[in-house]
C-alpha cells in the first residue's frame, strides 16, 4: 500500500498540533459579522438577474368587494411594461393553494391573486412587470378594477354569529376550525374549589414584529429547463414548495430556492409563497426574470400580522391556600382573511396548555375565525404567547381578586424542579427546568424587595405617581412534532420533525457544512462552526458554514427552515450528525492507511496521528487528496465506503400524537424565561415608564452564551413593543389605520430598557447537545408589563388587554368601569 508521501524534512520538523480547546460554551465572535458590518451582506434586494423586470402589485382598496372587470390596457400601453397578470388569469393557470384545515374550513379558495372577490384591504388583485421599479408602480396605478364593495366582518367574536358576512362562502360560516381541549375534570374542580374566579373577557391584540427587511424575491421561470429559480427571503422554502407545486402544477424539484442573508423574519416570512407564486407566473408570461421588493406600506397591509385572540368566559377554580386547579376558557383566534399557516395555531397553543404550572383540570374551547383583515403569520412566540399571556393574566387576576401575593401564588403552583421531565395533563413532556430558582434569581436581579419598599413610600407620599412590579413566567416550546397537525386534521400525513446538513471535506482538506436552516440573524454560521469544530478537532475559523437556502445542495427535508425555536436541536443535531459521519470516514481512511486501530488515533488540529508514534499521521489535506485525486492509492477495502461528503438527517424521538384525545408529545424542548419589571405610572396622564427590567432564561446548555443573550434581548424588545407601543388598528370599514412606520410605533432605542439578564442552564435530557431552542422567548414582557400594571392599579381594576398605551392606562385609572369591560368576580364557597 502506498501511503501519501512526506518529505524527510516534513517528518523531521513535524510536531503534533496543540489540542484545540472546546469552543462550545464560548462566546466566540460571530463569523457572519464582518460582511454585515462592511456592507457586504447579500440580501434579496441586493440581487438581480440579467433582463429582469420589476414587479408591482395592484391591491384592493376595499376590505371586502366583488371584483368585476379588470382593464389592464392602459398599463400595458406604457412603453417598458412587459406583462400584467390578473386574478382571472390565475384562476385558469393554477389550482388553489392546499389547505391545512379539514372540511369545511379546508374548502376555502386561496389563490396568489384575488379571484372573484377581495377579502382584505391590501390583497393583490393584479400584478405588473415593467422595465423599472418606478414604471411598474406607475403602470399599476393605471390598472382599472371594477369593485362592488361588500359588507365587512371585523370583530373576532361577532364574526362567528350567523348574520356576519361570510369571508369564504364555501365554508358556510366564518369558523375555519374549532376544537375542544379538555383534560382532568374541570366541572368537578369548579364545583369543589374554595373560590371560583370568573374573568368574562380578555383580549390579546393584533401586532406584527415587522422585520426591517420587507419581503423580496427575484424569480426566473427558465423556459428551456422548466426550472423556477427563486432568490428570496422566504424562511421555510420547502414548506413554500409544498404549497406552490400543487398550485402551479409543477414538480417540487422544479422549484429551486436560494437565499443568503435575511433581514429578520420572526415567522412573518413564511407565507410569502403566495406572492412568489404570482411572480413566477408573471416571469413565465413575460419570459424574463421578475424582481419584487415589497414597500413597507405594502408589508403592513399585504403580508401578514400576528394572531389576535379573544378569550371569553374564563373560570378558574382556586383553593384557599392559593392552589389553582386549572381553568376553563373559550378562545376566538382571529386569523384574518386566509388560513395560510392556520389553523395550526389551534393546536400549537396546547404545547404549553398549563403554562409553567401544575394545573390539572383544563378546558379550552378553541375557534379559528376569519375576518376581512390581513391574514396572520406565525409571529415570534406564535400561538403560545397569546395563550401564555392568558395563563399569566389568570394568575395575577386570581392573586389580585383574592388578596394573595402574586409571587406566592406562582411559587405555590409552579412545577417543581424535581418533577422534570414533567408530563402535562395533555401528554406533553416538559424536559427540564427550575422555575422556582429562576423566579428567585429574577426577583433578586430586579431588587424586588427594594422596589416594594419604594412602592410603599411612593404610595404614602401622594406624589401622583405609582409603581407597579410585575412578573411574567413564560415558556418557549421548541422542536415541534408535526404530528400535532393531525389534531387539527387527522388526514394530514405529517409527524415528527427533522433537519438535514451536509458536512464535507473539500479537495484541499477544507471543512464545509451546508445547512437546511435559513437563518435571519440567529448566528447559525457561528454556532454550527463551534459544534463541528469540536467534533473534528479544529478551530471554528476552519469550518466554512453555508447557511441560507439552496435547493441544489440537497441539505433539506420538508420541515427545513428557521422557525419555531428549534435550530439548537434540529439544525445543530443535523450538523453534529454529519460531522460525526465525516469523522467516521476520516477514521476509516486513517486506520486503513496508517495500519492502526481507531482507538489509537488522535484527532487534533486537522490531523489524525497514531498516539505515541506521531510520525504516523495524515492531515485532512492528505486524506482529501487520497479520496479526490489519488484514489488509485486508496486501500481497496475502504475505497467504496468513504465519500468525505456526508449528509445527515437529525430526527427527534417522536411518535404520532393521538388525534382522538388531542394529546401527546407535541414538542421536544421547553425553554423558560422569567421576567420582572417595574413600571411607573403618572396618574394624571396615564404615561408609563419602565424603571427596571430583569430576565432570567433557561435554555439547556448554551452553545454561544452571547448569542443566547442577544435572542433574549430581542424577544424582550418585541414584547415591550407589543405591550406598550405596537398595535394594528382597523376602522369600521376594514382599513388599517396605521400602515406605515409613522403611525405604527416600532420601539426605538430609548424605549427599550437596559435589560439585566442571567441564564440558569438545566440541560435537556432529550437533545443532542443538551441545548434547547430559545429564539421566540414566549412574550414575557406582555405578561410582565400587564402584571405590573395590575399591581399598580390594585384589585378594583382588571387589566384585560394585552396592549396598554398611555390612553388606556389613563382610562384604567380614571374610567375603570368602561376600561375593564366586565372585570372579574369571585364566587366563594
Amino acid at each position: 500500500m502506498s501511503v501519501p508521501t512526506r518529505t524527510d524534512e516534513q517528518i523531521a520538523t513535524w510536531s503534533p498540533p496543540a489540542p484545540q480547546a472546546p469552543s462550545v460554551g464560548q462566546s466566540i465572535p460571530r463569523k457572519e459579522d464582518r460582511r454585515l458590518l462592511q456592507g457586504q451582506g447579500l440580501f434579496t434586494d441586493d440581487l438581480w438577474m440579467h433582463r429582469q423586470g420589476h414587479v408591482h402589485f395592484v391591491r384592493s382598496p376595499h376590505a371586502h368587494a366583488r371584483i368585476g372587470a379588470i382593464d389592464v390596457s392602459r398599463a400595458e400601453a406604457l412603453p417598458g411594461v412587459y406583462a400584467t397578470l390578473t386574478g382571472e388569469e390565475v384562476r385558469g393557470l393554477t389550482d388553489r393553494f392546499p389547505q391545512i384545515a379539514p372540511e369545511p374550513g379546508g374548502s376555502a379558495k386561496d389563490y396568489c391573486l384575488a379571484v372573484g372577490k377581495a377579502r382584505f384591504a391590501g390583497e393583490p388583485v393584479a400584478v405588473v412587470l415593467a422595465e423599472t421599479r418606478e414604471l411598474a408602480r406607475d403602470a399599476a396605478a393605471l390598472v382599472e378594477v371594477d369593485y362592488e364593495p361588500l359588507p365587512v366582518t371585523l370583530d373576532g367574536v361577532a364574526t362567528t354569529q350567523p348574520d356576519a358576512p361570510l369571508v369564504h362562502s364555501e365554508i358556510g360560516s366564518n369558523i375555519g376550525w374549532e376544537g375542544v381541549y379538555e383534560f382532568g375534570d374541570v366541572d368537578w374542580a369548579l364545583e369543589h374549589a374554595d373560590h371560583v374566579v370568573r374573568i368574562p373577557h380578555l383580549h390579546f391584540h393584533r401586532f406584527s414584529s415587522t422585520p426591517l427587511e420587507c419581503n423580496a424575491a427575484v424569480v426566473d421561470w427558465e423556459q428551456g429547463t422548466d426550472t423556477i429559480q427563486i432568490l428570496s427571503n422566504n424562511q421555510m422554502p420547502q414548506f413554500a414548495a409544498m404549497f406552490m407545486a400543487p398550485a402551479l402544477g409543477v414538480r417540487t424539484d422544479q422549484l429551486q430556492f436560494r437565499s443568503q442573508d435575511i433581514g429578520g423574519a420572526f415567522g412573518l416570512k413564511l407565507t410569502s409563497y403566495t406572492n412568489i407564486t404570482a411572480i413566477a407566473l408573471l416571469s413565465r408570461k413575460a419570459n424574463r426574470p421578475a424582481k419584487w421588493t415589497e414597500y413597507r406600506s405594502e408589508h403592513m397591509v399585504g403580508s401578514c400580522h400576528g394572531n389576535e385572540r379573544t378569550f371569553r368566559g374564563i373560570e378558574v377554580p382556586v383553593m384557599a391556600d392559593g392552589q389553582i386547579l386549572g381553568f376553563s376558557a373559550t378562545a376566538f383566534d382571529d386569523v384574518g382573511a386566509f388560513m395560510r399557516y392556520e389553523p395550526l395555531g389551534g393546536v400549537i397553543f396546547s404545547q404549553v396548555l398549563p403554562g409553567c404550572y401544575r394545573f390539572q383540570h383544563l378546558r379550552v374551547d378553541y375557534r379559528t375565525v376569519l375576518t376581512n383583515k390581513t391574514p396572520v403569520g406565525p409571529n415570534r412566540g406564535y400561538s403560545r404567547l397569546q395563550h401564555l399571556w392568558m395563563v399569566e393574566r389568570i394568575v395575577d387576576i386570581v392573586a389580585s381578586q383574592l388578596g394573595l401575593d402574586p409571587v406566592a401564588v406562582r411559587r405555590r403552583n409552579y412545577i417543581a424542579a424535581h418533577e422534570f421531565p414533567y408530563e402535562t395533563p395533555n401528554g406533553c413532556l416538559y424536559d427540564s427546568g427550575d422555575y422556582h430558582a429562576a423566579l428567585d434569581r429574577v426577583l433578586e436581579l430586579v431588587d424586588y424587595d427594594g422596589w416594594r419598599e419604594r412602592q410603599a413610600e411612593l404610595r404614602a407620599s401622594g406624589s401622583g405617581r405609582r409603581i407597579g412590579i410585575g412578573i411574567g413566567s413564560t415558556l418557549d416550546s421548541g422542536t415541534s412534532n408535526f404530528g400535532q397537525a393531525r389534531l387539527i386534521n387527522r388526514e394530514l400525513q405529517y409527524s415528527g420533525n427533522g433537519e438535514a446538513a451536509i458536512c464535507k471535506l473539500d479537495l484541499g482538506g477544507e471543512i464545509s457544512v451546508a445547512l437546511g436552516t435559513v437563518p435571519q440573524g440567529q448566528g447559525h454560521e457561528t454556532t454550527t462552526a463551534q459544534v463541528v469544530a469540536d467534533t473534528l478537532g479544529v478551530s471554528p475559523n476552519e469550518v466554512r458554514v453555508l447557511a441560507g437556502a439552496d435547493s441544489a445542495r440537497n441539505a433539506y427535508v420538508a420541515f427545513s427552515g428557521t422557525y419555531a425555536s428549534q435550530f439548537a436541536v434540529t439544525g445543530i443535531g443535523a450538523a453534529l450528525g454529519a460531522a460525526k459521519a465525516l469523522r467516521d470516514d476520516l477514521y476509516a481512511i486513517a486506520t486503513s492507511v496508517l495500519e492502526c486501530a481507531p482507538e489509537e488515533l488522535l484527532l487534533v488540529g486537522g490531523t489524525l496521528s497514531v498516539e505515541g508514534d506521531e510520525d504516523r499521521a495524515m492531515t485532512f489535506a492528505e486524506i482529501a487528496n487520497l479520496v479526490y485525486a489519488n484514489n488509485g492509492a486508496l486501500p481497496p477495502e475502504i475505497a467504496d465506503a468513504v465519500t468525505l461528503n456526508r449528509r445527515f438527517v437529525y430526527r427527534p424521538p417522536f411518535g404520532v400524537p393521538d388525534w382522538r384525545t388531542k394529546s401527546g408529545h407535541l414538542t421536544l424542548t421547553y425553554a423558560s424565561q422569567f421576567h420582572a419589571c417595574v413600571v411607573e405610572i403618572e396618574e394624571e396622564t396615564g404615561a408609563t415608564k419602565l424603571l427596571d427590567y430583569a430576565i432570567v432564561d433557561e435554555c439547556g446548555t448554551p452553545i454561544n452564551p452571547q448569542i443566547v443573550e442577544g435572542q433574549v434581548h430581542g424577544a424582550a424588545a418585541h414584547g415591550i413593543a407589543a405591550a406598550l407601543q405596537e398595535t394594528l388598528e382597523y376602522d369600521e370599514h376594514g382599513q388599517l389605520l396605521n400602515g406605515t412606520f409613522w403611525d405604527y410605533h416600532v420601539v426605538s432605542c430609548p424605549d427599550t430598557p437596559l435589560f439585566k439578564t442571567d441564564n440558569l442552564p438545566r440541560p435537556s435530557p432529550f437533545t443532542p447537545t443538551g441545548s434547547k431552542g430559545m429564539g421566540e422567548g414566549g412574550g414575557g414582557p406582555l405578561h410582565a408589563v400587564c402584571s405590573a400594571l395590575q399591581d399598580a392599579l390594585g384589585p378594583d381594576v382588571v387589566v384585560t388587554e394585552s396592549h396598554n398605551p398611555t390612553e388606556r392606562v389613563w382610562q384604567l385609572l380614571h374610567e375603570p368601569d368602561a376600561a375593564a369591560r366586565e372585570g372579574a368576580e369571585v364566587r366563594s364557597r
Partner: protein
Amino acid sequence: MPDSVHAIELTVNGEPHEAVVPGRQLLVHFIRDTLGLRGTHIGCDSGNCGACTVIVDGKAVKSCMQLAVQADGRALETVEGLSGPGEEPNDLQAAFTRHHALQCGYCTPGMLMSATALLEQAEELSLDEIRRGLKGNICRCTGYVNIVRAVEDVAARRGLA
C-alpha cells in the same frame, strides 16, 4: 411620463463622482443601483427606520428622504467607507462584533453611520445621549442594549465618555 435628468458631481467615500440622474430618483436608489453600494438598505420608505442612513457633509441623513440631485456638490459617506472588504473593521465595527450588537445585520450599516456621526460630533457622550442619539435607527433584532454598549465602548476609547 418623461423624467427630467440632471448632471451631478459629488464625492463618495472620498472619491469624486459624476453622474446624470433622473429627477425623481431617490438618493438611496442612486447609492444602491447606480453606485452599486448595496450596504445602504431600505426598511420603511418613510424616513422612520434609518436603515438608509448615510453621512452627507458630516451629518447623518436618511437617504430615502432625499433626491439624488440634492447630493450635488456634497461629500457622501456610506458604510463601505468605514472599511473596505479585506480591510480590518474600524473601531466601531469591531466594537459591534465584540458586543454582539448585530443579528440579521440589515439595520447595521445605517446604525453604524448614525453612530459614526454621533461620535464625530460629540465632545462628550453620556449613556442617555447615546440612547437618544440612536433614536432614528430601528433595530428589530437586538433590543438595542448591545448596540448602546458598543457605542459606549468606542466613546470611552475615544475619550468621549
